[in-house]
């Protein structure tokens, strides 16, 4: 009562003094409400976000497809690849259909990577933005934005950033079957097969890859290829 002014009848009430570092009751309740709300939000929000973003981790898979008897593809003279349509998933024909350009080399080796392989199977997906390319006597051309490729599927003009994808194939019971799809680019001067990347995106140079030893050397023996560079025929 020492602090009460003389003559005052007020009962001096002194609130219990909390230590300076302590949180007040109001602050504690505010923080608890916010924290509890955040936890409730996270319980719903984290699985929902994972649900929406799960496809981001998916990689391209290729289901084996049968293109039919090899005799359908060997009547080629000059460079006139045969168009072969396929459906990867029969329950979704509208979204898993594709077209492969089957080029018959006139040779007989059934190993798809051999230098005398009997077929080279190109994807028709333009490496600019994914439109379908059409084959002609000089190679391939894309109707959308003018991408041009030579008979090896290597870009010779327009905006595509790398050669056409190629299919790994095998022959079983005299049927031509596509077993895998590869994205193709040059690494250390060699045509190299990489895991599939979408059109317009560069291949992952660090990914496991298959080197095709013969193609650039056969085509342009005096040209050293750089990744992403456009080879110039001479």
């Amino acid at each position, binding site marked *: 009562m020492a602090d009460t002014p003389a003559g005052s009848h007020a009962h001096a009430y002194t609130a219990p003094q909390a230590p300076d570092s302590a949180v007040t009751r109001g602050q504690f309740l505010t923080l608890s409400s916010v924290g509890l709300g955040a936890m409730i939000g996270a319980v719903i929000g984290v699985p929902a976000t994972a649900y*929406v*973003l799960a*496809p*981001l981790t*998916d*990689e*391209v*898979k290729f289901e084996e497809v049968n293109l039919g008897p090899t005799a359908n593809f060997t009547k080629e003279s000059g460079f006139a690849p045969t168009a072969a349509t396929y459906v990867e*998933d029969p329950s*979704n*024909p*509208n*979204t*898993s259909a594709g077209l492969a350009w089957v080029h018959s080399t006139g040779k007989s080796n059934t190993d798809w990577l051999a230098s005398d392989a009997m077929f080279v199977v190109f994807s028709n997906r333009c490496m*600019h*933005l*994914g*439109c*379908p390319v059409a084959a002609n006597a000089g190679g391939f051309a894309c109707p*959308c934005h003018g991408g041009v490729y030579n008979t090896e599927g290597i870009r010779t003009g327009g905006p595509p950033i790398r050669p056409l994808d190629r299919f790994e194939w095998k022959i079983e019971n005299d049927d031509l079957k596509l077993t895998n799809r590869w994205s193709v680019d040059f690494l250390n001067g060699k045509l190299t097969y990489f895991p599939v990347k*979408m*059109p*317009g*995106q560069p291949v992952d140079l660090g990914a496991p890859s298959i080197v095709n030893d013969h193609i650039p050397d056969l085509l342009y023996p005096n040209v050293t290829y750089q990744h992403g560079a456009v080879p110039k025929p001479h």
Partner: protein
Amino acid sequence: MPLPIPIPPPPSPKQMVLATEDWIEYRTGFPTLVRKFLFRKVPPTGWFHTLGSSLLTVFILQATTGMLLAMTYDPSPNGAYESIRYITDYQTLGWLMRGMHKWGASMMVILLFLHMGRTFFYGAYKYPREMTWLTGSLIFVLTMAMGLTGYLLVWDQRAYWASVVAVNINGTAPVLGPFISKFLLAGPVFGAQTISRFYALHMLLIPGAIGALIFVHMWLVVKLGVTPWPSRPPEEEVELPQMVESV
């Protein structure tokens, strides 16, 4: 003798309306809200000031026709094209609903550019209306996203390949590009889920966001007032620097 009790005359229709309004007013305050929203002081305006409300009208048109189309549309890879064909060729006035939605989409983009141009040339993006400009910019981006996601839903060859190209353009963006592309496709390639994902974005997520942004946008318009035609008040005339003759 008891005093005769006067019988009140029956209320006039006007009184009934006013009584109804009062009933709502005392319970919700909505009539005042609507009056404050609609009866505002505005500076001298012209036809250019009608572009914003035209946009709102077209948005409401798009939302309405979109809801009606959704009653028949089938967002699946095997059914989408046939359901569109049914709406266009067989359903009563289906061609009209689809036509209004299609042309309304183009109209919304055109009006949006005109509205943005008006805002820009009037200097209406300046203080204190920066937030109105920013929310408008977000509505602009989302309207473009509506165009992108809606284009695929027709599910004909043009829609399919245009969407392939558009998604691959997204994929070429640095760092995040491949993830954006996979997010849009609901997977690494165009698949059975792509069309339903575009549909959900087009139907629910983006229009909801646009609606919320329109609310904020209009709140700001009402709060800050309509921008007058830019002019310089006479007392603020800038004095030109004096020419100094060089010696």
